């Protein structure tokens, strides 16, 4: 084969450089799993210990009964991708087409020298079934990529985000497959390729044999000979057929079985001369091969890295107990899982608290976005208090219902990620709302509000939701301070420690509202300790909606206080 355009040395150099980058990248990214700090154990476990724990764990898993589980994971989760099928048939068709088509092309076609030739001694890429299968697998990839593109054009929104990595991945796949098809087609119609083959594998016995062969190939196999003028007769074709069977058939099947490239070649026929002259088939070959090499080098830094991380994650989480987390191996596993996420959005679509997102519009509620944030947190990005507050809100709205972990196609233990990142958030001063709201008492909050609200913009104030009860004095004005609400309140009754005592009891809250001291009512512990048992409301002789009011105050307080800096010192004279 003489493709002297750039030379095989160039190709081999390119291949080895790509392979080098790929391997180095993979090693670098895997090594990072052991260095990244995630979760509450962060910083306490040295890297050495993490490595040895992972090695020990791997060895223990391989030499135990869990070994059988590995086969189950390999067959169902990896080969059949049953976890995707569980949630969506169309997505499974998409992913399986790309995965299976591309893998078969890789094994049968790209690595034919190493694999196919050894398995099938009579292998030639232009023989059937290989020629047919190559087209079939190519079509599978194209169909899968087509569905992927359609999905991303069709669905826009927080459940499916298209980033550059997604675009690059899809584009690269498309370039590789399309250039492959085009190269095959252009070769079919290329006169120079035909001549080269003929000069290598054919010797004419009779003067018209060459013409006969060309006539047969141009009629049957779609070859084009723009410089030749000959009249096709049945005799000539019969002769050509015989010659083709003798000289070509051992390596060339009917080109029609290349069911994509053959019709494509038909479309290219009008341009056959110029294509042949410009040696298009060679250029396309370079595009095809170099695109593959670039893909190889890009793999560790692209979405394709999930080819490595997802099987590993599925295996690790498939055989380990998700509810019993080993603190030594937890950190490398979590880091690996962060790399395994392909942002497919399945978790967000199944999230139990996703409806809350529709109300609050905080994307940190959605697991897909949350995991990205966990990644940013793990990488040690500096975030300001306001940003952490938004993240904390999302993190603690999660009910840890386990649903996302159940559906994640990559098998990520999301539950553990949430619990770990929550502890991290709590450590940075952003715990559960009722914890940080108790940092100050009612009057301290009231001072803080006065101090900070002055600096708020008009626009922020306008965003507050409309409140029905606490804004309407008719709601609490009938209160006669009979204390029935306080008397029946089990929260007031249950307090025993004066330190944690309810500071402002329900009837006092009603009185604060009547006095217009809403700010003081907001920071009251009663508001935060209320269990909404409705005893007060059911017993109020004046029919005041005490519980509903307290619940509304809770919401108002949270909305106000989350905007207030809890760490800043305020030096205001309270008088």
């Amino acid at each position, binding site marked *: 084969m003489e493709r002297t355009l750039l030379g095989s040395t160039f190709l081999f150099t390119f291949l080895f450089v790509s392979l080098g980058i790929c391997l180095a990248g993979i090693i670098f990214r895997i090594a990072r799993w052991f260095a990244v700090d995630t979760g509450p154990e962060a910083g306490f476990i040295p890297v050495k210990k993490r490595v040895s724990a992972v090695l020990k764990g791997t060895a223990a898993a391989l030499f135990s009964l869990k070994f059988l589980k590995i086969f189950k994971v390999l067959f169902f989760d990896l080969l059949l991708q049953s976890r995707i099928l569980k949630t969506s048939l169309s997505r499974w068709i998409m992913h399986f087409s790309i995965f299976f088509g591309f893998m078969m092309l890789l094994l049968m076609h790209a690595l034919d020298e190493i694999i196919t030739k050894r398995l099938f001694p009579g292998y030639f890429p232009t023989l059937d079934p290989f020629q047919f299968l190559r087209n079939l697998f190519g079509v599978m990839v194209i169909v899968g990529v087509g569905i992927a593109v359609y999905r991303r054009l069709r669905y826009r929104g927080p459940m499916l985000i298209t980033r550059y990595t997604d675009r690059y991945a899809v584009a690269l796949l498309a370039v590789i497959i399309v250039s492959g098809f085009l190269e095959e087609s252009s070769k079919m119609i290329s006169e120079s390729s035909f001549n080269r083959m003929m000069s290598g594998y054919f010797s004419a016995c009779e003067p018209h044999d060459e013409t006969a062969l060309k006539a047969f190939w141009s009629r049957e196999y779609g070859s084009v000979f723009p410089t030749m003028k000959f009249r096709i007769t049945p005799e000539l074709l019969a002769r050509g057929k015989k010659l083709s069977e003798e000289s070509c058939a051992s390596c060339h099947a009917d080109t029609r079985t290349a069911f994509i490239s053959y019709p494509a070649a038909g479309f290219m026929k009008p341009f056959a001369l110029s294509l042949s002259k410009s040696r298009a088939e060679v250029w396309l070959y370079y595009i095809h091969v170099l695109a593959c090499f670039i893909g190889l080098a890009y793999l560790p830094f692209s979405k394709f890295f999930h080819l490595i991380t997802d099987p590993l994650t599925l295996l690790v989480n498939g055989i380990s107990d998700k509810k019993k987390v080993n603190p030594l191996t937890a950190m490398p596993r979590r880091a690996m899982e962060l790399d395994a996420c392909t942002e497919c959005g399945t978790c967000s679509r199944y999230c139990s608290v996703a409806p809350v997102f529709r109300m609050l519009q905080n994307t940190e509620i959605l697991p897909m976005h949350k995991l990205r944030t966990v990644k940013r947190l793990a990488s040690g990005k500096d975030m300001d208090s306001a940003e952490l507050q938004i993240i904390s809100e999302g993190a603690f709205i999660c009910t840890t219902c386990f649903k996302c972990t159940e559906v994640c196609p990559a098998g990520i233990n999301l539950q553990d990620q949430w619990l770990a990142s929550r502890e991290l958030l709590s450590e940075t001063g952003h715990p559960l709302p009722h914890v940080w709201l108790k940092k100050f008492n009612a009057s301290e909050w009231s001072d803080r509000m006065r101090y900070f609200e002055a600096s708020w913009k008009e626009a922020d104030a306008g965003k507050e939701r409309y409140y029905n009860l606490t804004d309407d004095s008719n709601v609490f004005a009938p209160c*006669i301070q009979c204390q*029935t609400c306080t008397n029946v309140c089990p929260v*007031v009754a249950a307090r*025993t420690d*004066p330190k944690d005592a309810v500071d402002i009891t329900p009837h006092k809250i009603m009185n604060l509202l009547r006095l217009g001291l809403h700010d003081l009512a907001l920071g009251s512990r009663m508001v935060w300790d209320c269990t909404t048992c409705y005893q007060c409301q*059911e*017993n109020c*002789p*004046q029919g005041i909606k005490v519980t509903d009011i307290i619940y509304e105050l809770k919401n108002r307080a949270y909305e106000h206080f989350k905007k207030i800096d809890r760490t800043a010192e305020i030096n205001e004279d309270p008088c």
Partner: protein
Amino acid sequence: MALPKSHNYDPKHVFDIMVIGSGIAGMAASLFSVNRKLSTVQAGSVGGTLFASGLFDLMAIHPVEEKRVWADPWEAIAALRKQGSLHPYARISDDAIQSAFEEIASFLSSAGMAYRFEKNRNLPVITSMGTIKHTYCVPESMWHGVEAYNEKAPCLIIDFNGLREFSGRQISSTLREEWPGLRAVRISFPDTEGLNEVHPVHLAQALELSAVRESLAARIQPEIREARYAGFPAVLGIKKTAAICAHLEKLLGIPVFEIPMMPASVPGFRLKEIFDSVLPPKGLLRLIDKRVESVARLDNGNFILNIGGPDQEQFIQARGVILATGRFMGKGLLSDRKGIYEPLFHLPLHQPESRISWHHERFLDPSGHPINSAGVEVDDSFRAVDGTGKTIYDNLFIAGSILAHQDWMRMKCGSGLAIATAYAAVNAFINNFMNKSDRITA
């Protein structure tokens, strides 16, 4: 008399009587109705009886401008009648009032809250302010207080750290001159050390446990010394008051009694508990926290009552209505710039000419204020009448404090008025209406 559940809200189902109001008058009317086998339905807010002190007054002061206290309530009522007063008592016989009290007392006694009264005598009861209140009928748990006061026996008043509106020291210092044997002590209620506030219902709930009572008694024991009675704020349990008093008496070795507190107090909760839990099994359909929004009258005379509330509206048909919605606090009467009005039936009211004459110049005027005697005027069957004395509806009966020509707060006749007029209204409904054969029945 169990009611078919499916008929509860069917407007075609005809109840005998609908009681509107859930205070003492409404509750008494419901009790008298179910005791007389009338199919009864009652609507009203949840806490009508919460403000009751637990004491049942009959009549203690008359005339109010003189603040004359009567030792015998019947004599006070007789004086009313003799002077030609329009007070509702003037329309009821002593026997009827006495029977009404007996029926209520026996009901409460059977429900676990026994009462004591003496036939012709008002009883002196110590209040949380240290004043003496004259009342007719006292709960058993307060009885020893009456005895102790009469004897002026050495007595210990116990109060608790953090309990507002009750001070043993105030009581003892107010009564020091007439009762030198009174001594006050303040202790911490078990498990409330350090709290700056405790609430009576929570203490009452805690005392339902014998361990708490033992712990409390141990704290009081060293303080008893010469005392022969022990007085507590009215927090001795909610459902087992009699047993709790008996247990404390055994532990302390001396009789104990309760002192009524400011409303809403624990005895009010006890009454509410009893009415809420005992009346429905006797056949009362109680629409809790439901208000009657509007009323219409059918051609046959039956009332259709539109019941509102948190749920969607429903309709009740009843052959008669007892209106016991109280005055302003119970929202039986409302006011605007022109005067006061009755919002449900728009009944004509006895009331001062204009707002300017509602009140006297002085807030504490000894004769009270004209607005405190405003209300619905009735005939001898407790049916509402208009200005000319004509009955408005033959099946609408009025009971309780919404009635005109009485100032129950100053006359100390509130509970008696509620109970007696409810009794009279129910009986009038049966005698003048139910027994008439020309009325269409269900």
